[in-house]
């Protein structure tokens, strides 16, 4: 557990010292969503109808943006050797890195989302559900993304390859995330959708570290 805390602390410290990287992600999220009122016009009923989908799709893409760097820097400067040589299981260290990735990129998205919901005329009653759905969904995005980042570590043009690998796996999160917020906006039960989002998180929480660690070990050879 100490090793997990150590990698988490290191990655957070690195992010704190070069805040540009996580700022890029949240700025991308905000700017792309802001484009929509310009693109489809300011009519409130149209914006309100597409609000949930736009916010979720852009959150997916923003999360994707930062994945390429998740293991690449550690691999290029030799830190990945150190991680793999730690007596602690590599799976645990991967979990620490994913947690750091979520704190650095996922949490700012959640914080920025009410502002964008306001801009997109999302009904006020759906705000708590949007936050809750993002809170359950974004960690799953980081977990799924880590598998893609690990698998493409050795590949040239890894960034594009990650998108091709990871986006299809993001679809369930997108479906249930949007369904939850839409249900809230039209006054239907949100609980089943949130439970499914939680189920996805519970599925990938153990699967992702194991799969990612296996991919990293392969990349180290």
């Amino acid at each position, binding site marked *: 557990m100490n090793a997990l805390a150590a990698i988490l602390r290191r990655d957070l410290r690195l992010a704190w010292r070069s805040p540009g990287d996580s700022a890029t992600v949240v700025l991308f999220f905000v700017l792309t969503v802001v484009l929509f009122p310009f693109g489809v016009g300011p009519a409130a009923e149209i914006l309100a109808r597409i609000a949930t989908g736009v916010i979720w799709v852009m959150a997916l893409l923003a999360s994707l943006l930062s994945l390429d760097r998740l293991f690449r820097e550690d691999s290029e400067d*030799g830190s990945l*050797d150190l991680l793999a040589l730690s*007596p602690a299981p590599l799976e645990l260290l991967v979990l620490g890195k994913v947690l750091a990735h979520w704190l650095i990129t996922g949490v700012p998205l959640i914080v920025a989302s009410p502002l964008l919901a306001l801009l997109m005329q999302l009904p006020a009653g759906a705000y708590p559900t949007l936050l809750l759905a993002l809170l359950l969904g974004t960690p799953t995005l980081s977990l799924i993304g880590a598998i893609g980042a690990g698998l493409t570590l050795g590949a040239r043009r890894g960034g594009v390859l990650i998108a091709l690998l990871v986006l299809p796996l993001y679809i369930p999160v997108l479906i249930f995330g949007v369904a939850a917020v839409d249900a809230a906006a039209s006054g239907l039960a949100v609980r089943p959708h949130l439970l499914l989002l939680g189920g996805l998180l519970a599925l990938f929480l153990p699967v992702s570290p194991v799969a990612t660690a296996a991919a990293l070990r392969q990349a180290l050879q």
Partner: protein
Amino acid sequence: MDDSTARLSARGLTCDRGERRVFAHVGFEVRPGGLLAVVGPNGAGKSSLLRLLAGLLPPAGGVIAWNGHAVADEPEAHRARLHYIGHLDALKPALTPAEMLAFDAALRGQRTGASAISAALDAFGLARFADLPARFLSQGQRRRAALARLVATPAPLWLLDEPTLALDADSVARLTAVLARHRGAGGLAVIATHGGLDLGAHDTLDLGAVR
């Protein structure tokens, strides 16, 4: 160092990289306090051998053993007993040498106080740079910061890949002293080298000759 009576041995070690056989049937033994110098031309597999010994690469054949027990059976214990310093220094430009040493110690599951860290940096003449982000360090200073890991946390087995790369004469002397102290305490070392380091009494494994 509770393992101070331990031996590292390899039998029939074979390494493939891609489709190419790098070396085959390499065997050796390193006793407590012993040092094995791995020599050979470029591409002979010196780095690959060290990565095999560290467990980063699976061997295509053969057995690596610690005290007669195959290390493949107890990978966590093996990782805990070794220090591997490769070609890359594994430093982060934004982190200081002291922070990196503390991180490395935590990764290894060891508690290292500030005094142990400053002693390790001091052993390589880096005390003045303890709190300077690594991006301001020169190539040689970065190498010394990486080597300071050896002193910050004890480990009976050192695997060093061209440790003198980018080091000046003074730093090579410091490394020689650190190495002598390690061996005096019963530690083992396997070093890939092109020369330039005073190794003292040692065995030599010429990978250029075994192919």
